[in-house]
């Protein structure tokens, strides 16, 4: 029956037809095109995106932008008011506040990004396995998730970070180990709904392997809601990391980190409030920017509002 085309073997399975981006602008990847259009009309989301872009640029270009070495202690200059050499003044050890803020951007954003990547690395396989395999695997994973969700996340992270000892790496581990559960749940739900779609059944009946079904048919549908969730969550993630650092569990001196800077400035709040105002403003700006972008992305990628909380 399968004569004719079956002569040659050993060719890699894969797409035969290359997609031509731009040929059907309204349909690029089916959904992304119109989503981008919607995002373009959302000024607040674009503002958020712009702020984040600036912050990321600042983080990358920190060595070129910072006027001073952020860790250089000049005790003669401690708690100095703004001047030409120190545009925002100095902290209690005479370190340049602006430089520390600039380097802090780098630390805060990269810590949050790494934590997020770790969260994805855990939650996508776990959530997909629970949803796709089902049965006792699903039951086991969901019960573990239920147990973890029964504790307040930040407190649990605090406990884990406390047990592991202070340090940025440990904070990332602590955050990731409690934060993945929410994502795994959402991903499981999406996988469950996609798994029963007829195109998945059709793929199964035409011989696609489980791996092929997950990679080609299920994960692409998981992606856009997860991007929305992750963007909305970046703000809280940054806040959580700053919070743990504020409590002394995260960044250790002399590393410039916003949460730790808040803590350092706390005893001098009355004489030099700028020590707390500027890091606080930085945190607020980033969190706000991520929330604005996340809201916009949600409206653009998920117009039906399935993720609305």
């Amino acid at each position, binding site marked *: 029956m399968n004569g004719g*085309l079956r002569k040659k073997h050993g060719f890699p399975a894969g797409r035969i037809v290359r997609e031509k981006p731009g040929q059907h602008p309204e*349909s690029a990847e089916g*959904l992304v095109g119109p989503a981008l259009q919607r995002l373009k009309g959302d000024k607040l989301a674009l503002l958020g995106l712009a702020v984040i872009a600036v912050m990321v640029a600042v983080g990358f270009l920190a060595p070129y932008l910072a006027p001073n070495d952020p860790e250089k202690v000049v005790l003669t200059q401690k708690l100095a008011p703004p001047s030409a050499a120190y545009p925002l003044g100095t902290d209690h050890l005479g370190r340049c506040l602006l430089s520390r803020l600039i380097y802090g951007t780098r630390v805060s954003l990269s810590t949050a990004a790494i934590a997020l990547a770790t969260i994805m690395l855990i939650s996508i396989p776990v959530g997909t396995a629970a949803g796709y395999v089902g049965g006792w695997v699903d039951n086991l994973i969901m019960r573990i998730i239920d147990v973890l969700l029964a504790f307040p996340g930040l407190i649990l992270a605090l406990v884990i970070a406390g047990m592991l000892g202070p340090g940025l790496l440990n904070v990332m581990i602590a955050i990731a180990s409690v934060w993945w559960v929410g994502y795994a749940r959402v991903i499981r739900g999406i996988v469950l709904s996609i798994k029963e779609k007829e195109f998945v059944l059709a793929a199964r009946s035409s*011989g696609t392997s489980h791996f092929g079904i997950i990679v*080609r048919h299920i994960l692409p549908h998981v992606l856009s809601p997860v991007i929305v969730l992750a963007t909305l969550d970046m703000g809280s993630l940054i806040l959580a990391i700053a919070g743990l650092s504020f409590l002394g569990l995260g960044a250790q001196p002399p590393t410039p980190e916003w949460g730790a800077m808040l803590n350092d400035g706390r005893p001098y709040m009355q004489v030099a409030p700028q020590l707390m105002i500027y890091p606080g403003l930085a945190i607020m700006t980033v969190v706000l920017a991520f929330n604005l972008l996340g809201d916009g992305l949600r409206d653009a990628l998920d117009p039906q509002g399935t993720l609305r909380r």
Partner: protein
Amino acid sequence: MSLLKVTDLVKHYPAGAGFFARGKEKVRAVDGVSFSLAAGETLGLVGESGCGKSTLGRLIVRLEEPTAGRIFFNNLDITALSGKKLRELRQKIQIIFQDSYSSLNPRRTVGSIIGEPLANFRIGTRKEQRRRVQELLEIVGLKPEHVSRYPHEFSGGQRQRINIARALALHPQLIVCDEPVSSLDVSIQAQILNLLRNLKTQFGLSYLFISHDLAAVSYISERVAVMYLGKIVEVIRSQDLVQKARHPYTRALLAAVPVADPRRRGERKVIVKGEPPDPLNPPAGCRFHPRCPAAAEKCRTEEPPLETVADGHVVACHYVKI
């Protein structure tokens, strides 16, 4: 020789699944179905919603695991095939679903959708696969340049053509058509039915054609099997359907087909009343007796077996034998 033979096939779903309700109640979706399908034949399968006809179709394509019973394909028992052998079987049996939109992944191009089975079995080089996809598109009445489009750019009828093309890609012997035209406009229905008919002669296919539409089923099939609540109650040749169908349920289905003549309005007699019974808890005896106009005492206690009443005509009813 029969291409497909099904004996006593059963599929029960646990109902109210949960820790405390384990194994208590079952939905008897398919409850002891036997039939056979000859090579080159089309068997129509009709029944109302929820009678288990789609489940039966999915069991045959091995998308669901049967609870009991056997499925033979080319005299090979495929009930418990798994792994490599199941994958080999996948080339021979394909399925077309009712919902032409949800059976196409919205994020993939038509070319990659139709080419997926070819890629799965590594049939030919990419170039050959591409050519084959274009050929398939032409076979089902679409244009080769449609390969790079996405499903949402097509109408319902065109999408169903894409589904048919995918099902044809591997040169299957049997295609299970699970209500392939039910969600389409009447004019498009006819086009798709004619396409399926032509493809059958062109490629020597066999169909299991599932539908709730008697007209469509008798148009495309040689024989019609009528299903009620998980069981086949009558199998009859299509040309005999209107004249010789004997099971009261089949008669009721026939009577429910609208007649395009208002003057004959009064002639509709056998109308089934009420809802189909709960498949969790089917009635004892003949499953149709609560709604049957001819039910007698025997029907309430004893389940009628399928019996041959004429060549190619089997009925499960106490009443028609008397």
